[in-house]
């Protein structure tokens, strides 16, 4: 069955600001990363030690990625919530690790931090689940993810 957004009328609302009118997705993504993601992603000795223990450098890249992914997937409880409802700013990766709980975004940020500590290049992506229906890419709003 199609998602509700494909068969029902909807009104999208986003926070208003003068800059939004001329902003592209690239600009919006860059601004979001610099303001909300990068400040939380400071190097951490604790994360570095965990990454070294879970994914020793002697192992192959696939095995190291799996080990870090599986640790975040299994050891951190997932709190449900969309980006819009749970807040755009993730909690710091170390906080997620210690609390052993976080939203999908918190877990993704923790995994990216662990991969970075293991010297594995990783980028953060916001994906719109397909059950939410197609995205309206003409409407610049992170709430669509």
């Amino acid at each position, binding site marked *: 069955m199609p998602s509700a957004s494909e068969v029902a009328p909807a009104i999208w609302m986003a926070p208003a600001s003068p800059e939004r009118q001329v902003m592209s997705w690239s600009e919006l993504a860059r601004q979001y990363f610099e303001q909300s993601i990068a400040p939380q992603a400071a190097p951490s000795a604790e994360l570095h030690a965990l990454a070294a223990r879970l994914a020793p450098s002697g192992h192959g890249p696939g095995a190291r990625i*799996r080990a870090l992914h599986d640790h975040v997937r299994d050891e951190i409880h997932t709190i449900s919530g969309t980006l819009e409802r749970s807040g755009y700013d993730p909690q710091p990766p170390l906080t997620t690790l210690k609390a052993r709980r976080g939203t999908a975004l918190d877990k993704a940020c923790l995994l990216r931090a662990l991969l970075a500590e293991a010297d594995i290049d990783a980028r953060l992506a916001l994906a719109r689940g397909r059950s939410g229906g197609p995205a309206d890419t003409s409407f610049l709003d992170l709430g669509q993810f």
Partner: protein
Amino acid sequence: MAGGWWLDPGVSSPADFLPAEDQNAVALVVGPGEPVLTLTPTLPPEASALERRGDRAARFASARCPVRWSCARRGSSGTDLEQFLWAPGGLERDAAERLTRTLVGDAHLTGFRAAQPRDAGPLLLALDVSWSPAPRSSGDTLRLPAPLLTPPDWGDAVDATTRRFPIVFEGTEQHRDRIHIELPRGYAVEVPPEVTVPGRWFSLFVTAGKRFHGSLDRSDTRAPRSRPCSPRT
């Protein structure tokens, strides 16, 4: 992003399998590096596969009989059964009875055991059931109780008279069911199930040996995002 891994640690999928919900989805890569608005990849059906094997013995009259069922799965296939067996506190009696009705048909459950090693090996389900009597014998004919394999419960979703919206398969999946039935000594299969359209419920029937050891094999590959009809109003 070509050649890279797409990971979603928020769901219970293996690292190398992107859940169907996340496939072919709009994604905003925010950083570090140059941002890009892109689509996530779509994985082929064989990336998410489920193979179920069942063993059961056909007996006369009322008899206790072990039934073993195992599931080997890849990707997201079998996650519903996995969650079912992996519920807090383990498999409950009423859930085991529902599974018995689904897998075996009209039988009384006398015992059960489930094992669910995460990410490794098949799901294992051992049921101890009694039929009263099952299968039925009539003269020299033995009738096996239906269903041998239970098709998916689509409910009214595909009823053309009540359906209002197209059917959309959001993910791709490959299913393979095998069942092994041991007949009582002296019996043989005279009328095997008809081989129907390949890719439908029964696509292969195999007999081997005088004492019947047969396999019913169902291969079912679902097409990605097929939209067989226009919306009804």
